[in-house]
């Protein structure tokens, strides 16, 4: 199947590309920014680990905190410390944003008001799924850096090393701004989706102010009591759920293959996940991605329809349900199945009367 873009070719030939390369050389090719600025950019191996960690978290984008944890979180006072033991835990903040703490992580709540959320990652890793709200300040302090966001998904990691405090920011969606102050010099860096930033703060980070601890690893049926419970020492790390989660591995494999442009391999992995783990939480998204790949890259509109219908049955979330319905119209049209196309278009119009694809779909099923 062709896209409109296939009909538009830029007036670029080899000679022009050659000229562009020469111009780049003359302008002075920049080197990737490195340690000269005292920022330690993450190298390939470490990045792969970070990415794997990030993806593992991303695979559960709708982490639903345990009811008792959420209830307790809503009552989190300023100064409370969230601490996970040997499993990932998620809490919801007063503005609806979520924080998922990896095993053995600690986050201190500096403010939990609807218009001002301020947290501090004191140790370990955490993922932040921040609701978009331009009128609210959402900031996370980590080491000597402050990470500010509007609405995005990102992870932070902090670890103490012999040479200082290592801090890493990995952005999955949206943009975050990192502000670092060193020797009275402010440095603000914007990190975009699929980018990672890290640094080492050589100076010792001040000890956190002693605060009541909210240990999420235990039953919080009585939240007031648990908030004032003395802090437990961190337990030894245990295997996380993702360590023994082949569905998660398949999803990660598929996502990486898709991002790297290996569409057939990605489709096979999504297909395998659906076949082996049909009731997995990621099945709806996997079916949608499979449908998209079959349609856009593998020239298989009939297979795409099957996968997209499956995504709908599996409870596709609002973010891609509309796309799935629209794609079924387009795929049916491409196959010349006019009746199926008309029914699919009607279904789309009923569910999304002002949908973004409505105008384009009106041209279909002729």
């Amino acid at each position, binding site marked *: 199947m062709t*896209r*409109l*873009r296939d009909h538009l070719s830029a007036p670029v030939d080899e000679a022009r590309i050659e000229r562009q390369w020469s111009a780049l050389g003359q302008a002075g090719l920049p080197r990737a920014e490195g340690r000269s600025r005292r920022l330690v950019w993450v190298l390939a191996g470490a990045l792969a680990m970070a*990415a794997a960690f990030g993806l593992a978290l991303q695979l559960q984008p709708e982490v639903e905190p345990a009811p008792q944890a959420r209830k307790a979180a809503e009552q989190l006072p300023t100064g409370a410390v969230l601490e996970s033991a040997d499993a990932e835990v998620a809490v919801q903040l007063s503005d609806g944003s979520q924080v998922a703490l990896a095993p053995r992580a600690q986050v201190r709540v500096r403010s939990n008001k609807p218009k001002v959320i301020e947290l501090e990652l004191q140790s370990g890793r955490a993922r932040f799924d921040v609701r978009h709200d331009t009128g609210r300040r959402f900031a996370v302090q980590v080491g000597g850096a402050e990470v500010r966001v509007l609405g995005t998904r990102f992870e932070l990691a902090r670890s103490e090393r012999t040479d200082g405090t290592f801090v890493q920011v990995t952005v999955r969606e949206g943009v975050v701004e990192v502000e670092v102050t060193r020797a009275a010099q402010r440095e603000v860096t914007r990190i975009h989706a699929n980018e990672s930033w890290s640094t080492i703060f050589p100076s010792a980070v001040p000890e956190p102010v002693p605060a009541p601890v909210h240990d999420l690893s235990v039953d919080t049926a009585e939240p007031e009591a648990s908030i004032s419970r003395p802090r437990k020492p961190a337990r030894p790390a245990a295997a996380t759920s993702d360590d023994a989660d082949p569905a998660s591995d398949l999803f990660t494999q598929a996502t990486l293959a898709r991002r790297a442009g290996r569409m*057939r391999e990605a489709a096979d992995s999504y297909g395998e996940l659906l076949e082996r783990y049909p009731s997995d939480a990621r099945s709806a998204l996997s079916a949608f991605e499979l449908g998209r790949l079959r349609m*856009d890259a593998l020239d298989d509109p009939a297979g795409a329809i099957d996968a997209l219908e499956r995504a709908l049955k599996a409870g596709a979330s609002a973010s*891609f349900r509309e796309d799935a319905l629209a794609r079924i119209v387009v795929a049916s049209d491409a196959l010349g199945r006019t009746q199926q196309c008309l029914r699919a278009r009607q279904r789309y119009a009923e569910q999304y009367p002002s949908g973004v694809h409505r105008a384009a779909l009106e041209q279909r099923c002729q």
Partner: protein
Amino acid sequence: MNKLAEPSRKSAGTSSVVAKPLTQEKAHAGPSDAALVVAARAGEKWAQEALFRRHARMVNGLAYRLLGRDDELDDLVQTAFMAAFRDLGRLAEPQAFGSWLASITVRTTHKLLRRRKMLTRLGLREPANVELDTLLGASLPATVQRELREIYGVLDALPGEARIALVLHRVDGLSIPEIAERMALSESTVKRRLRLAEGEVGKHRERAARESSS
């Protein structure tokens, strides 16, 4: 999304064929993008050159479709690659260099469009509108011509984000999550921008229909 504008049909029953690969799927001779990224980070100029040569057409094509004209293409391509090489250390997944570079190209184009609009408002430069006739070759099928004219006919009237979202959606066939990733916006913002753009396309279509009937 994908091919909402794709006009071709297939007879019933055609399916399950491994089709021509997309550009990004083509097997590249030589080292992978991930290996080149690692080498380029280490300051290897040959790796930068290999990445440039491998992805220059993609960047040129994307920028050209977003701008709808040719005259600023070289500057834009240069700016996008300079930014990519400078920020290579931030790339979390080296094998995803291509899609990351595409995001940088989209952001660079957005900045250019904003700057252009501001200078035009201040009277410091002439408007640089879409060059429709150059863009659409005479050999294009009539349905494709019509659809591209609808889209590119409204681009200059749209705010930058709506313009980019419309091209990525209708011309490049990206899904809303993909556009959100490329533009660093939330999916709901992308949908709002697309609604605005599609509304303009609809008005353009109605005007054209009225003119042809009168």
